[in-house]
């Protein structure tokens, strides 16, 4: 008996027991759909974290101004302006493990263009910022070191600000007002999306740090900065860079050993790597649980195939009497199990893909369906069919034709 004939026989007998076949397939459908959906959710979460890691820039180290105690009241990190422009310069120049470093300062202010206004974050930086954050301009240019030196009134806009104030038009060359100070827009940054903390990274206006210090912050601590961003020289030197920064700043700030530092160093990519690892474990777990339902589906197939073999003992006897060999009978029942598994698997794939879409659409979770996962699910359901179909099929093929013919 060839495969085509066997498939036709299998299809016909499955159609003869429609309800039973559908219920059996349901096990596979649920199993495969669950696996696809769970893997999609896991992969989506992973992808999102990878994208966030990429969006904050690789090998990023943040140096936050520290807590100070004044009159018994301790403020949290960032509460005291303990970092200076000189600190940032020293970190960038003196430390071998650090590639780049740049001071930043930020404040919230309304930005006005024409009759549009938008309250956003104003970040004062040096040109290193764009390199450290790996942030491209999609229109215009960055501002230069000379412009920072001269405290020029120039601004580079994030996508969100650009869209809010200018819509589809290019803002390059236009004059905007920040706290009534006119700035010339020289560039627009590419879209970054959400930060790992869930903030819109594109809701920002970037200006030279010197300008920010003079015109916007009005700080009493002249020359101090907010957060210093640093980039390690390479992926494997992040730890070393962190250590060198701590050592350098302790020395510069004259902090005795054992005394609490007035700054803190954070390695964001490391934090995200931890998050990524836990997401991976989570998706593995989800996948494992879903696989259990696939296993249950397989057992369902085996169960129904055993019933089918018993019910059709006489048919098997007739087929043997007219000359069916063991392998013909084996093939017939194996293909029947396979058709059940593969049909169920295919419907499960469609359902899983549809379900993932619904989840990302309505629950807002990002999901990612890879062709690899679909192929794997398909192959797996076929393997389940063969594995759980083999025993009943073998049992059928080994029946004694005389006994089988006599079976009522």
């Amino acid at each position: 008996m060839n495969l085509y004939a066997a498939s036709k026989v299998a299809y016909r007998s499955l159609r003869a027991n429609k309800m039973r076949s559908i219920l059996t397939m349901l096990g596979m459908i649920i199993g495969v759909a669950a696996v696809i959906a769970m893997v999609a959710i896991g992969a989506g979460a992973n992808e999102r974290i990878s994208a966030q890691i990429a969006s904050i820039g690789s090998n990023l180290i943040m140096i936050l101004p520290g807590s100070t105690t004044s009159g018994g009241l301790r403020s949290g990190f960032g509460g005291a302006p303990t970092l200076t422009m000189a600190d940032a310069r020293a970190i960038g120049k003196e430390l071998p493990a650090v590639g780049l470093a740049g001071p930043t300062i930020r404040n919230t202010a309304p930005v006005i263009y024409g009759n549009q206004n938008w309250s956003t974050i104003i970040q004062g930086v040096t040109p290193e910022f764009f390199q450290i954050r790996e942030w491209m301009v999609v229109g215009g240019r960055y501002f230069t070191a000379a412009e920072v030196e001269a405290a020029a009134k120039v601004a580079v806009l994030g996508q969100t600000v650009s869209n809010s104030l200018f819509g589809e038009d290019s803002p390059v060359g236009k004059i905007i007002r920040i706290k009534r100070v006119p700035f010339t827009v020289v560039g627009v940054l590419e879209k970054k999306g959400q930060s790992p903390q869930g903030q819109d990274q594109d809701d920002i206006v970037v200006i030279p740090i010197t300008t920010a210090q003079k015109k916007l912050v009005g700080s009493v601590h002249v020359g101090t900065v907010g957060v210093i961003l640093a980039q390690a020289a390479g992926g494997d030197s992040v730890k070393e860079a962190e250590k060198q920064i701590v050592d350098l700043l302790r020395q510069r700030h004259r902090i005795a050993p054992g005394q609490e530092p007035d700054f803190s160093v954070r390695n964001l990519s490391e934090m995200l790597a931890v998050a990524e690892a836990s997401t991976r474990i989570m998706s593995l777990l989800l996948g494992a649980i879903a696989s259990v339902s696939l296993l249950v589906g397989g057992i369902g197939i085996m169960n129904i195939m055993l019933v089918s073999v018993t019910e059709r003992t006489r048919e098997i006897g007739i087929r043997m009497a007219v000359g069916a060999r063991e392998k013909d009978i084996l093939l017939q029942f194996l293909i029947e199990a396979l058709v059940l598994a593969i049909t169920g698997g295919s419907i499960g794939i469609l359902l899983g893909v549809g379900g993932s879409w619904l989840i990302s659409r309505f629950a807002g979770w990002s999901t990612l369906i890879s062709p690899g996962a679909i192929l794997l699910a398909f192959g797996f359901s076929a393997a389940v069919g063969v594995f759980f179909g083999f025993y009943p099929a073998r049992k059928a093929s080994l029946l004694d034709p005389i006994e089988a013919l006599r079976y009522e």
Partner: protein
Amino acid sequence: MGNPSIEIDNLSKTYHLGEVSVEALRDVTLSIARGEFIAVMGASGSGKSTLMNILGCLDRPTSGSYRLDGDDVGTLSRDALAGIRRKKIGFVFQGFNLLSRMTALENVELPMIYDDTPAATRLERAREALRAVGILDREHHLPSQMSGGQQQRVAIARAIVNTPSLLLADEPTGNLDSVTSIEIMKTFQGLADERGITLVLVTHEDEISRYSKRIVRFRDGKVVSDSPVVPR
């Protein structure tokens, strides 16, 4: 009469049912010529069904030899026996044993499916076999849509479609009324006369056995009489 189609020599079959051994056939020696039409008679338990199973290559003898067309088939493997059944033997059962979900035509095609006969040839030969038993007009009917006589004709068509050298009929008229029984027996007679197929018929009805040319009677696993049918 030509070469013998079936040669059975000192054939015994013993079943072991737990502690008890049942000797279904004891030292049976029988020779059936090609094209012969023979009726095997006997009470139930006389061993005639066991003989049919062995002749039909569904079972193997415990001792003794069975030659079909000169080949010793008593010692072949299960798959080899399946091959013999497919190519050389046709079965007709008392209960028709058609596959209920298949049409008459598909039932007749069944033995050829296991032969990997091309579909076009299958269809042609199945139709021819149905025509030979006079039931071609029912080719697309399911067994449940046919009378017993019609179903048995389909079963006969299935049995002869691979042009076997031996046709085995186990109480083929057992479930049929007498008029239909006569029609079926005439069909068998025609096949034996026209095609030269060796025909072994098991029955307990004298009326039916008279359509054959030779009657072999069994009792307690032994041949007790073997005589030609006297034409009436």
